[in-house]
């Protein structure tokens, strides 16, 4: 009887510990135990200055995916951003992807403006219309030095 109660206490303790560990790593750490609920599209940008891997991808302010990775296309010397989009979200092939900043000093994220085309983007689809990151410093220096076109 005494041994059983010891085992129960340890069992409860370990269970609580594992639940906490799972909460931390899955909910907060975003560890993906089962993959494959996403598909990947890519877009070419002139500049993605400040955008990080894992930044959110939003449509109308709702998060629909994340930036998977950012690479440089050696031929065109433009930035290629791979987006991992949730399976339930359908993107048309004339969607416009823009790099935006949350607040003035906030994180960079990508917002998608849906188009009206009938064709949907599949896995590894290419987003043709993109808008690059607005470089606040460049804008400021243009304004200060009076080179605004």
């Amino acid at each position: 009887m005494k041994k059983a109660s010891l085992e129960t206490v340890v069992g409860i303790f370990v269970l609580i510990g594992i639940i906490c560990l799972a909460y931390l790593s899955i909910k907060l750490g975003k560890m993906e135990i089962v993959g494959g609920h996403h598909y990947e599209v890519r877009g070419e940008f002139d500049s993605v200055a400040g955008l990080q891997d894992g930044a959110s991808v939003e449509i109308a302010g709702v998060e629909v995916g994340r930036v998977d990775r950012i690479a440089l296309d050696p031929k065109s010397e433009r930035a290629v951003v791979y987006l991992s989009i949730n399976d339930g979200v359908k993107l048309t092939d004339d969607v416009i992807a823009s790099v935006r900043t949350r607040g003035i000093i906030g994180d960079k994220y990508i917002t998608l403006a849906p188009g009206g085309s009938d064709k949907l983007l599949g896995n590894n689809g290419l987003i043709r219309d993109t808008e690059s990151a607005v470089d606040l410093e460049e804008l400021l220096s243009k304004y200060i030095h009076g080179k605004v076109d």
Partner: protein
Amino acid sequence: MSILVDKLGALTLRLLREMGRMLTFLLYSIYMIARHPGKPVHVLRQVHFIGAKSFFVIFLTASFTGMVLGLQGYYTLAKFGSEGLLGSAVALSLIRELGPVLSALMVTGRAGSAITAEIGIKKITEQIDALEAMALDPFKYLVSPKIFGALIAVPLLCAIFDVVGIYGGYIVGVKLLGVNPGAYFHEMEKSVEWKDVYSGIVKSISFGLIIAWVCCYKGYYAGHGAEGVSRATTSAVVMASVVILIWDYFLTSVLL
């Protein structure tokens, strides 16, 4: 002059001998864990003693640590008008740093001292010699289950500490100070990465090893009489706490 040099030499030799003895103690106990993991019930008893019995003290310290982080974080962040970041401030400081370190320090105080006292008393009452006389390895019965148990219990306590602390910060930040609850959790989920959680767990496992190692060692080589055990217990707690904090710095600089 020559007396001073002699004393310096003696001190160096004593330190070196002590460090070597500690290292061989650790290596031998790891070897014993690998060869004879011990009966599950021995390990279970240690998980119960180190882990389950520390639950309430961890719960209490974690909730107040989280609450004071909520209070301090709010005070600082409100100066920049970014109270919404309170969740990520509380969660990151808990997961990366405070959770592993504070839970390890609490376990050192509660369970580590008891481990040293237990082994020390067994040493001075010649129970360890009796085991050896019966050709039973004292490491197998005394040391290995404790190290094994600490390796399981301390990371779990750290995870509990993190989650309880996050909700403590939530209570103060959201319920008392009026931060937006959605912002608290959303910013937290956005800023905490798998790397942060991982580094916290790695830290906590290594702290568990340090606690069990230092406390078993100090008890195993306790001096004579009740005074020897009391001195061993004190120095075990002090040494384990100091080693945890020093090791934490180096581990953080490597894992960052």
